[in-house]
């Protein structure tokens, strides 16, 4: 623990994330921007650190930020790879700044081991929701037939969990036959290619497709469209606007919304208010420092309503009510 308790009136707010080319991270940044605006500051006050999928760049950028602003930093970060979380947190607490993390953290690392500086970690349990989308898919298939799964970058934690959820659901459907599981690296083009390959290998025995992300589902749908297949059941994950739109059209049967907009805002808010001294993280219980983010299953039944509420407008959030949407 570094110079804990060194509070600053006006800490710099920074978000460090993977890239700007992905709808998910764009939503995170919008949330961050909304939070910054709620403080009466322009959006440009939010410092964007983009690591482009490189843990090395992630860490180096954060170090530079800390050398520039020292303890006066409130950082929200996805450390990109689980092992990168520790050096990030150590660097921040050494500088006496404040950090809140999402998604990637190893199990042996805990906010409460760093006094106030490591404010919180939010992650999402993807196993359950992924199991739910799989069930929606299997039901649409009539409980029988062959299914394929397209996964994210295989060593990424969400990819592992979403695959685990899918496998859990399989246990309950004995007549569903798992044809293949393959990583398509969250990539639309790669998913398109992999799906084409699956179509050759399994042909008509594919009756449903389980995708670990929306971006891959788009590639799958286009691969099917090229073959004139319009009614294959497909489910995905992330709840991107385009995917929700496709759910309303029935092209995707279900996706899971993890509310990146809220996550982007609240993670920055946690770090910021800890830095200003508005609350004292070490006084909070453990479940306020490591908690699960919200997940909402979006299906064809409720997609329209969901879209109106979360996509067409963003709900007004109270950025001081930190754990309002946390899953229990």
């Amino acid at each position, binding site marked *: 623990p570094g110079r804990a308790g060194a509070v600053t009136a006006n800490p710099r707010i920074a978000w460090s994330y993977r890239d700007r080319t992905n709808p998910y991270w764009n939503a995170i940044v919008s949330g961050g921007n909304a939070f910054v605006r709620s403080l009466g500051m322009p959006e*440009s006050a939010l410092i964007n650190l983009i690591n482009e999928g490189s843990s090395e760049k992630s860490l180096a950028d954060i170090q530079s930020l800390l050398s520039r602003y020292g303890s006066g930093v409130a950082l929200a970060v996805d450390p990109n790879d689980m092992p990168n979380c*520790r*050096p990030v947190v150590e660097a921040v607490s050494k500088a006496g700044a404040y950090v809140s993390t999402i998604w990637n953290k190893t199990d042996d690392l805990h906010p409460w081991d760093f006094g106030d500086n490591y404010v919180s970690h939010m992650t999402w349990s993807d196993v359950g929701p992924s199991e739910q989308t799989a069930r929606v898919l299997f039901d649409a298939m009539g409980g029988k037939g062959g299914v394929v799964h397209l996964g994210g970058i295989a*060593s990424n934690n969400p990819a592992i969990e979403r695959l685990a959820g899918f496998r859990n659901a399989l246990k309950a459907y004995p007549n569903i036959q798992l044809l293949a599981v393959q990583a398509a690296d969250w990539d639309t083009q790669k998913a398109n290619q992999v799906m084409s390959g699956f179509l050759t290998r399994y042909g008509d025995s594919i009756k449903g497709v389980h995708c670990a992300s929306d971006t891959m589902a788009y590639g799958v749908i286009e691969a099917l469209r090229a073959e004139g297949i319009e009614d294959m059941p497909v489910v995905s994950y992330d709840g991107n606007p385009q995917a929700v739109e496709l759910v309303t059209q029935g092209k995707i049967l279900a996706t899971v919304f993890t509310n990146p907009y809220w996550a982007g805002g609240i993670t920055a808010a946690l770090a910021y208010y800890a830095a200003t001294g508005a609350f004292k993280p070490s006084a909070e219980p453990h479940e306020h420092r490591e908690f699960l983010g919200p997940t909402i299953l979006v299906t064809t039944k409720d997609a329209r309503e969901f879209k109106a509420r979360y996509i067409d407008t963003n709900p007004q959030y109270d950025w001081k009510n930190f754990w309002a949407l946390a899953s229990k």
Partner: protein
Amino acid sequence: MSGDLTLTERMRRHFPWITLVSVLLVVGMKDINFLAPENLVNLASDFVPLLIMAVGMTFVIYIGGIDLSSQSIANMATVLATISLPALGVGAGLLVIVAGLVAGAVSGVVTTRLKVPSFISTLAVGGIALSVGQYASGQQALHMDMAQRLHAFGWLVGQTAGIPHALVLALLIVAAAWFIQVRMVPGRTFKAIGAAEPAVIASGIRAERYRVLAFALSGMFAALAGLVFSVRLSGGSPTLAEGFLLPAIVAVLVGGTPLTGGVGGVLNTLIGTMIVAVVRASMIYFSIPATGQQIFFGVVLIIAIATTIDRSKMRIVK
């Protein structure tokens, strides 16, 4: 040397570090604290893994080749280091270095014996290294046991008098590489190969062996970079070293070692890596907006390369 060389010609070889000092000063003018020794030391130590990789790659570029496998070898190294740590302790480091050496040597053999251009052979060997990493990791991110990590590699993460040990290690590595380059037979031979390979062969040198050696060294350094990074992050994953490749190549090139070979060298790469580090850090100092960072990097890169490269030794610019 010859007294009547023109001023620019004599200055040429100094352009890389002049460029470095200029970018340092530009950022320093924005915020003088940037130039504080402590800050610069920290900045440098953040770039240790990248520096090690770039130094290795310098040997291959120096003989006129390119190594695109470094990042994948580093990825593999993080996995191998993490999974072998419990059983081997410090020996994990040795294992990783040998693995890198072997992977690099394979690239070298494929390039020299099978006559596959290094651009392709190293890309392909990188694919193989990636597969090894994915397979060995079970496609998961792994983390090191804290006690074991401290026991085996604690010396690597510590500091003495404010100087991070990793930085000391990196400078030792640079010094060793520099010694190889300017004072040892392999270094001289690399230079000759980059300058005129047929003449090297006709002088009775087994050029192929030295070319394999250059690739092997590059592979070894890449693995070492992976090891240092893995220890710093205390874990491994087949994607942990993503994003190393292009900055490493850029560091070598900005330093003034052109892809044609025979010119430049390890010290140039040291400077090149520092330039990349400062340019990246400068984005924070100049508050470059998120969507403009890539453009900024690209444009600064062109300017830096345009000023650092020594065109007098390049008869043809391809």
